[in-house]
C-alpha cells in the first residue's frame, strides 16, 4: 500500500441532537468509524447486507445470559419476522426460555450479594440476575412429563436436537417463547450440547423413574448432516454470534464441512484470543481453517451483548423499514418442497 492509502478517510466527529433515532446514532458511529462504535456500525452494515442478500442463510448463535438479561423477545421477534433462519444455541439459553414459557421469571438482582444466603433461600444467581430454584423445579416436573410424552410417540426412535426443540416448542403455549416461535415459523433450533443444561438433568429425572419403559433419546450426532446440509445448499451463509462456545463452533464447523465457508460473520464477545479457545478466536483465524471465506464481510464487536445486540437489531430493522419482507432461501426451499 502507498502512504496515501492509509489516510483515505478522516474520523468525523459524532454529532448528537435531541431527535436522533437509533439508526441515526449508528450512522454517527459509522462517521467516527473507530473503536467499539466503528465495530458496531460495521456489524450493523453486515447484518443489513445479510438481510438484503436474496440467498443468504442467517445463523444466529446464542450463548450466555441472553434470556435472563432480557433479550428473549428480540430473538422471538427475529424468528417471527424471518430475520434469522437457523438458531444454534446452548441448552441453557433454551432452558431459560422454557422457564419463562412455563410461568417462571428472572429477577433484577445484584452481584455484590451474599451467595451463601442465596443458596439457603434457594435462589440462583446469573451475575446480577436472580432466578428462584422453584422455577427450575417446576420446569423439571413439567418437562419430565413432556419427555415421557415425546418418548412414547417416538417409541424408541431417537431425535436430533432440532427435532427435540421442535417437539418442545409444539407443546408450549407462550407466544413470546423462542422455542414456540421457532416451532410455529419452522425455524430450526439446534442444541449441540443439549445435555449440558437443565435439559440433561430433566432427562435424568425422567429416565430414572421406576420401570420407565420409554426413555427419550436425543442424538446430537444426528444434527450434523442437517446443519451441514443447510450450509451446503444455501448459496451464501452468514452468522451472528452472541458469545461463542459450542454454538459458534457448530456454525463455523458446518461451514467448513460443507466446503462453503461463511460469507458474512458478526461476533459479539468479551472473550480474548490469547487462550487459543474458540470463543475469543479472531475471525481472521477462522479463514485459515476454511470456516470463513477470506473475502467475507466480518467484524468482532468487543462488548457485552445486552448493550450491543439490541442496538444492532434496532438499527438494522429501522433501515429495512416496516414494509420489508424477507423471503429467505430456506423458506423458498421449504415452499418448493425441496427441504431435506
Amino acid at each position, binding site marked *: 500500500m502507498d502512504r496515501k492509502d492509509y489516510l483515505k478517510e478522516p474520523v468525523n466527529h459524532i454529532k448528537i441532537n435531541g431527535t436522533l433515532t437509533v439508526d441515526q446514532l449508528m450512522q454517527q458511529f459509522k462517521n467516527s468509524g473507530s473503536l467499539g462504535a466503528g465495530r458496531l456500525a460495521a456489524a450493523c452494515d453486515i447484518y443489513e447486507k445479510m438481510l438484503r442478500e436474496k440467498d443468504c442463510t442467517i445463523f444466529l448463535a446464542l450463548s450466555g445470559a441472553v434470556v435472563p438479561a432480557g433479550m428473549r423477545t428480540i430473538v422471538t421477534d427475529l424468528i417471527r419476522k424471518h430475520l434469522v433462519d437457523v438458531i444454534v444455541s446452548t441448552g441453557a439459553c433454551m432452558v431459560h426460555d422454557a422457564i419463562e414459557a412455563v410461568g417462571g421469571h428472572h429477577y433484577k438482582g445484584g452481584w455484590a450479594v451474599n451467595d451463601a444466603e442465596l*443458596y*439457603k*433461600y*434457594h435462589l440462583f444467581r446469573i451475575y446480577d440476575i436472580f432466578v*428462584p*430454584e*422453584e422455577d*427450575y*423445579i*417446576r420446569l*423439571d*416436573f413439567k418437562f*419430565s412429563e413432556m419427555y415421557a410424552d415425546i418418548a412414547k410417540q417416538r417409541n424408541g426412535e431417537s431425535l436430533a436436537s432440532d427435532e427435540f426443540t421442535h417437539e418442545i416448542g409444539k407443546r408450549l403455549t407462550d407466544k413470546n417463547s423462542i422455542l414456540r416461535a421457532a416451532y410455529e415459523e419452522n425455524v430450526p433450533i439446534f442444541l449441540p450440547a443439549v445435555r449440558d443444561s437443565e435439559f440433561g438433568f430433566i432427562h435424568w*429425572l425422567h429416565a*430414572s*423413574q*421406576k420401570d420407565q419403559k420409554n426413555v427419550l433419546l436425543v442424538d446430537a450426532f444426528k444434527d450434523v448432516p442437517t446443519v451441514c446440509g443447510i450450509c451446503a445448499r444455501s448459496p451464501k451463509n452468514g452468522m451472528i454470534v452472541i458469545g461463542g462456545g459450542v454454538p459458534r463452533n457448530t456454525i463455523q464447523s458446518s461451514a467448513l464441512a460443507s466446503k462453503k465457508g461463511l460469507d458474512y460473520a458478526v461476533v459479539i464477545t468479551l472473550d480474548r484470543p490469547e487462550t487459543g479457545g474458540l470463543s475469543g478466536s479472531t475471525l481472521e483465524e477462522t479463514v485459515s481453517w476454511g470456516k470463513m471465506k477470506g473475502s467475507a464481510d466480518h467484524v468482532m464487536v468487543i462488548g457485552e451483548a445486552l448493550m450491543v445486540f439490541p442496538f444492532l437489531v434496532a438499527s438494522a430493522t429501522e433501515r429495512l423499514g416496516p414494509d420489508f419482507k424477507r423471503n429467505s432461501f430456506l423458506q423458498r426451499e421449504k415452499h418448493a418442497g425441496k427441504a431435506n
Partner: protein
Amino acid sequence: MENNNEEKFCGNCDSHNCFDYPTKVFCSTRYWHHQNPIVDTLWHCESYNRVSQECYCVSEALKQKNSGKAAES
C-alpha cells in the same frame, strides 16, 4: 437466620428441592417412585436422608406455620 432444627423434615432431607417456598418441596425420590412428589416441607418419610448443605426451608416453614397459629388464636 439459622436452621438448627435437628428434627427430620422433608425440608432438610437431601431429596428436596424448592417447589412453593417455604411450605412445599419437590421430592425427587418420590418422583422416581411415581408418587406425588409435591410434599409439605414439614413432613418426612422413611426414606429421609439428612441434607449436607442446610437451607432456610424448615426454619421459614416453621415460622410461617407458627405465625399462622398465632393469627388463628
